[in-house]
Structures are given as structure tokens and as C-alpha cells.
């Protein structure tokens, strides 16, 4: 397997509408505020082993609000 860079997730707060799909699919990577809108946990760094969950969350966001970037 090629060495992948470390992943980072980011929720665009202008696009997020609080569907909460990311929190359901990747609770380690996303958190919800008092209105139910999503934010990345910490600086968005994806711990090793959770990469698939990051991509899954992105693929299921109805508002296309999640960015996954490789360092």
C-alpha cells in the first residue's frame, strides 16, 4: 500500500445544515454544537485507522459541506 499522507477533515459552517450524518458515521471526527450543526473535532486531524470513516462522512453529507484533505 502506498504511504498516504495524514488526512484532515473540515466542515464548512456556511454549508452545514445539521443533517448530522457525519456525527452518526464518524463520531470520533465530528461534534455537534447546541443547534446540531457539525464541526470537526480539534484541528480536524484524522487519527490513523479512521481514514475510511472520514471518506464515508464526506460521501454521505447531503450539503457537500465536508472537505477531506491530505497533508
Amino acid at each position, binding site marked *: 500500500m502506498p504511504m498516504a499522507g495524514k488526512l484532515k477533515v473540515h466542515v464548512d459552517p456556511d454549508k452545514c445544515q445539521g443533517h448530522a450524518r457525519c456525527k452518526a458515521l464518524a463520531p470520533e471526527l465530528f461534534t455537534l454544537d447546541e443547534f446540531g450543526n457539525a464541526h470537526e473535532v480539534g484541528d480536524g486531524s484524522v487519527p490513523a485507522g479512521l481514514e475510511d470513516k472520514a471518506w464515508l462522512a464526506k*460521501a454521505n453529507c447531503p450539503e457537500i459541506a465536508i472537505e477531506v484533505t491530505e497533508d
Partner: protein
Amino acid sequence: MSDVSQPTAHPPVTDWVHDFDHTDPRWTADPFPIWDQMRKASPVVHTDRFLGCYMPTTYEAVRQIAHDTEHFSSRRVIVRDERPEVAKNAAPPITSDPPEHKPAKQLLLPPFTPDAMKKLEPRVRAICNELIDGFIKDGKVDAAARYTKHIPVRAIAHMLGIPESDGDLFIKWIHMILELSIKNEAVLGQAVQEMTAYFTGHIEARKKNPGDDLISYLMNARDKNGQPLEDSHVLGSLRLLLIAGIDTTWSAIGASLWHLARTPSDRDRLIADPSLMPTAIEEFLRAYSPVTMAREVVKETTIEGCPVKPGNMVLLSFPSANRDSAMFPDADKVVLDRKENRHSAFGLGIHRCVGSNLARMEMQVAIEEWLKRIPDFRLDPAGTVTWSQGTVRGPRQLPILFGKA
């Protein structure tokens, strides 16, 4: 004028692409081939019925309109035969546009977060089991009348702090507002009047004895200027929670059970692997999305190249969008472990359903508890499944036999 409330005639549809009618009995019974036919013909279709109405048929067209609050207003969210005057504080925030929308929405969001729903979950689980206790010995049941209907009614009553036993009243009002009023405007006024009187009583009671329920929460809320909400705003929001929170989830749970009653392989799969439940619920939401909304054009623009003018109504069919094969491979199949599912069952954009977390929780609990106690079931060949007409689609009669065939 005495003829104002006379229902408009709806002749049977012979051309779905140029003369569609979402109240036609064939649409109510099985809309999927109709939507496929419309989508194949054009991303947006038109009918002269309902004083003229457009309908986007693709996911992309629906998405664009849902995100475009500048040209498409939510002041009218149901397509009717008539266009009554728009009432102030009709049902905020679902009938609100920017900039009024955001503060009205933010007010309702905190009581409906996933964490808040977790606290409600044990009560919903108990409600489901109480209902099943009532019919499991009979060997058969009309699941729409005795199970799926009562779960959201009792859950929302519990949240509002009103008697769960008033559920039949709520169901009557919802039927009047969402189905009968499409063709008979007078019914709408009557239902709103009755609901207003009912909730005014509960508001007055809480002025003397405040509680920790959702009605008290709204009465204690402050607007952006730090002022309490007008009574009309509180009443409008209560109307919305009742109307939007009940027959929608009733429909979604019912359609899921209808699917499982006809599909033993999916039933067996869910029982063998309960971890599939969350993706299965999302797939039921996609394949059998209950809710169709509407928008009114307020500024000239185009939908996929088709010009629309102020005053035109647009039927915003999230259910049709969710069956678009350009967005969802095998869109016509129910795939319990569908990995990518950006369905729009709860809407897209700023009007995302405020109760989506409640609906998901109720659906999951209702299906889980049913499968635990009634793992084998099928449609009763001696009965007839009927579906609701118009804005929210789901089974209203769902005769089911327990046990293996």
C-alpha cells in the same frame, strides 16, 4: 361567495409530462414509474392544474431550487387548487424566508439535537411495546392504524407536555390540513382555528404553571431583540411541530414496514445483522421519502433552462429526486447497506427538517422493536394497502399477518 369552498374537479391524468397531478389516485398508489417517465422526458415539467405548477424531476434540479431562497420563497409550501392570502407567522420557520428564517429556526433546533433525542428514546421504545402488546395476540394488525400512526403522535405529545391521549385530535387536524384542504380551502381555516383554540388553552395554563416541556420552552424563548415571542409565533411553531412531526414519520415507519412485509430477505438480513439498521433506515428514507414540499417563485429565473415567473408554484419533490439514477446507482432498488446516500428526504439547504433526528430515532426504534417481537410477517392478501394523497405519502391502511406464510 358561496362557491369559494367548492372542491375543484380533477379529471384523470392522460399525460403525466404536460398535465401532471400529484393528487391523482395512480400517483398516490404507485408514483415511481410516473416520476421515471417524467424525469426521462425533462428535468422540469409543468401542469396547468393548481393554477399552474412546475415540478423539477431530477436530484440536481431539486437541489438547486432548495438552495435558491432568493428566487424561490417558502411562504407557500403546499400546492393547492387555490392561492389564499399568506398568513403572518403561518408556521415559522418552514414558511419563513431569509432573514426571518434563521432566528426562527435556531429557536427550534436545540430541543431536537441527537443528544436530546437519546433522552426521549426510552419513552419511544416503551410506547412501541405498549402498542405491540395491544395487538400481538391477534395474529394480525392494521399496522398503520394501530402502530405506525401512534408512535410519532405520542412522542411529540410527550415532548410538548400535552396528553398523549389527545392524539386522535391531532391526526384529524393533520388530515384536514395536508389532504382535504388541497381541494377545499374552507377546511384549512377550520383546522387552524381548532388547533389555535387547543394550544391557546395550553399556553394560558403554562402562564400560571410553567413546565419543562417544549411549549414552556417556546414561551420562555427570546427573539433577537431579547423580547418574548408573540403568541402568534409560538402558536405557529406549535402548529408546525404537530403537522410536520406526525404524519411524516407515521408514513416513513409505515413504508419501511410495508417494504419489510414484502421482502423477507431484507427482514432476515436485518435480524441477522442489526448493525445494518442505521444504513437501512437511511435507505428506507431515500427509497420511500414521504415529504414533498413546494416553493413560490418570487423573482424571475430559470430551472434547468426553463423560465419561471413570480407567482408560479413549484412542486419540490424530494421523493422523485431520491429516485434519480443519475445520483443514486440502482435508484429503484432498496439496498440496505448503500454506502453513499446523500438523500434529500429531509430537504436540502436552510429548510432541512428540524425534526430529522427525532424522525430517525423513531424509525429505528419502531422497526427494531417490531422485528424483535414480530420477526416474521407479510401483507394480508385479504386486505388492501392504501396510501395518503398529496404532500406526505405513506400507508394509511397496512393490513399485516404475523408468522410465516
